[in-house]
């Protein structure tokens, strides 16, 4: 829920929390920054906001921002977030995690989440490596990459998360780069405002373990889709755009479909009662007795 601006403007301070534990220079700082900035921009209320994550360096983010944080299991942020969202659709639910978290162990939750289109924002901090477990190949690691798990070089072609998200049916798909904080915050605000499953693949360099996909690597390659004639409402065009990865890497909103209902808008319970948490736990004896009529 995007709360109306109240008398007291919320500022970045309202989102302050403890010091991040990331390595100095880690790309994830930019994400934290963007998260706070767009929370302020959209004037979200901390107590109505839940940041959900899996396990990984990137998944530590909820601790570094105020509001409710839910730091779950490796690969399980999306289903947990869905549980939160359907229990209380009035909450703003933002999910953060890593490429291993979301594309290896958590790929089922991610793609089914994309398909079912709840109103969630999902940021993958894609560093093409398993950071927290100290340098193994991830599903987005490039071919040939040597890591602790691939001492002879990675032989598995990387996933393209954008293509996958599109294929699964996400209604908002964007790529951003930790190298461009402002652009990131802009995209993130759009993602949060989007009604439905918004996926952001953020190129977030791991300065400790990934010496290939560095800030410089991206700086040399990225260009902004907003500055082209790319039409994010065109699915086919978006899909073709998603293949672009090389000397040029597009960032920005690759796809957005504003014309679909969210899951919550169609769920038979929620359409009837709204947030079941707000409604409260009820024992409606008459209703229960009514059910029993089917069992005679």
């Amino acid at each position: 829920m995007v709360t109306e601006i109240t008398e007291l403007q919320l500022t970045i301070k309202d989102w302050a929390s403890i010091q991040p534990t990331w390595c100095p220079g880690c790309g994830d700082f930019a994400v934290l920054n963007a998260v706070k900035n767009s929370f302020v921009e959209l004037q979200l209320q901390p107590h109505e906001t839940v940041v959900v994550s899996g396990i990984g360096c990137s998944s530590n983010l909820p601790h570094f921002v105020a509001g409710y944080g839910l730091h779950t299991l490796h690969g399980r942020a999306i289903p947990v977030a869905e549980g939160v969202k359907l229990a209380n659709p009035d909450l703003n639910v933002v999910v953060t995690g890593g490429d291993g978290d979301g594309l290896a162990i958590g790929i089922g939750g991610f793609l089914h989440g994309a398909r079912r289109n709840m109103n969630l924002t999902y940021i993958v901090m894609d560093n093409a490596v398993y950071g927290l477990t100290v340098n193994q190949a991830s599903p987005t690691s490039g071919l040939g990459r040597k890591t602790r798990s691939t001492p002879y070089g990675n032989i598995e072609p990387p996933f393209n998360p954008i293509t996958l998200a599109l294929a699964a049916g996400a209604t908002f798909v964007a790529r951003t780069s930790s190298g461009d904080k402002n652009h990131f915050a802009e995209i993130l605000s759009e993602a949060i405002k989007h009604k439905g499953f918004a996926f952001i693949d953020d190129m977030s360099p791991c300065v400790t373990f990934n010496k290939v996909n560095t800030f410089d690597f991206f700086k040399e390659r990225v260009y902004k889709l907003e500055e082209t004639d790319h039409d994010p409402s065109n699915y086919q065009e978006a899909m073709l755009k998603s293949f672009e990865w090389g000397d040029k890497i597009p960032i920005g909103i690759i796809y957005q479909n504003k014309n679909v209902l969210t899951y919550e808008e169609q769920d038979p319970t929620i359409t009837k009662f709204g947030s079941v948490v707000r409604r409260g736990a009820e024992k409606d004896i008459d209703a229960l007795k009514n059910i029993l009529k089917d069992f005679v």
Partner: protein
Amino acid sequence: MSDLFNEISIRISGENGDGIFSSGDTLAKICSRSGLEVHASRAYQSIIRGGHVSYSIRASNQEVRAPADYIELLVALRKDSFIVDAIPTMTKGGFILFDSKGSRIKDEPIPSDVELIDIPALELARKLSPLKILRNTVFVGAAIALYSLKLEYLEEIIHEAFDRKGEEVVNINIDAARAGYEWVLQNCKLIDHNVKLKDRTEKVFIGGNEALALGLLAGGLQSYSWYPMTPATPVGAFLAKYGPNAGCVVKQMEDEINVANFAVGAGFAGARSACATSGGGFALMTEAIGFASIIEAPVVFIEVARGGPSTGLPTKTEQGDLNQLLGASQGDFPRAIIAQTTIEDGFYLGQESLNIAEKYQIPVLIASDLYLGEHFETIPELDFEKIPIERGKLILEEIPVEEQPYLRYKLTEDGISPRAIPGVKGGEHDAGSDEHDEDGKLVSDRRAGFPEAIQVRIKQMNKRMGKMDLLLTELPPPQVESNADHPDILIVGWGSSYDVINEARADLLKVGIKSSQLHLKYILPFHAKEVKEILEDFESKQIPILMVEANYTGQMARHIRAETGFLLKHKYLRFDGEYILPREIGMEVKKLLNKE
């Protein structure tokens, strides 16, 4: 003991796809509406068409809480009915209703002293319509005629089932029912039974899974997540249908891992939350159970066991997953394990489990099984007021500034910390699966090993585990039920076998064997002291003790020994997937008493 002609015992059997279950269900409901107590159970295979399925009904003027151990009337739709049902299970003096021409049955093995009633069911049906399935209605009509049950109830049920399909369908079915009914009246001697049929009665006739699901709704369930798995599927099907009108979100997920994690998310967000599955799905859920426990989110996890190991015997029953429940997830953490004992119990347990989960902020694991979950009974009237919804230390209102900072995992006297949920202003906090301090901040990342962090760890472990002790004081201690001051035997059971053992004891009493029953429902935390005392008391009086379980190794016996040290020397273990019957227990008791 089931009792020829003093009770009704009907089985209808045929291939999967023959419509056996709906015919059986119709028969069962007719018995129920006729004022009888009814027990109904099914047998089937993991296949959609073919195989051999049956629906067994036991009905009586007295309570019937176990399957019959013989068939009085077999409605045999297929050849296999003779091999699978008639030969092993028919009693002398029983009847087989079959259609030799229509079902191409000839030269089938026939048990001795059984009366064969060869009804041209298919022929009668064909006269009305080419729909083969009408044959079943003819059979049902014939069966109720044999027992002098009222055709009226059958017609009523036909209306309920087919009214939405239009008058023609209804009429054809009613005609078929009458055709069978009339055929019997004209051609057969009716069964001369001693069961008193009453006027219309409106008893609830429900299954163990459905009763549990209803109990959850009565407990204010707000979120249910699931993935289909036999035999837990009916819980989901029930809630998918009735949940949305009762304020419960129901979500089918892509697998059981995400089912469980969805449930944790909902619990964290403040919903009364549950999910259900069977053995293999539960294996996938275990990681989330430890997660729920460490973040102190209330969630109810239901495990309706089937024959294992692995995919095992998906359509057969077993109490074989206790080890899995006890060992679910890594590390030491608080959780409750409670076994559903009867269908009726499911209704109350559904409510109780949500209360425990929320008051203690722990995962509650419910153990049920295929037999209990899938069989149906007429049950006593339910008390909807008995168990109020208790939400424990849940904070729903803004936390005033003077009570800040709010500490989600505050060390309190009873180990339970006031719980704020998202949406509550001032209650903002982080819930993490890593070890954390009172504030929810991790101690695993920057501080692990620091002297201060080591203390945090110890305190949080003590706090969490302390909830087990506290919970134990709230749970009702086990009681011995006896039908004599100085019984001949103590029978120990757990979960789904309560009624079966109970009936076995009643039967034993009829032959002069007095017995006591210790039935375990609360498995963790466990009333070790009380159970030990009870068992040692019987042992000291040299009263033999028989443990009854439906698994290979005696998993509950092991748990009892782990908790009390007491060795249960005599065990009756059944692990072939079939239901344990009162008669078997009786035989085992007699064997044991003679031997002793």
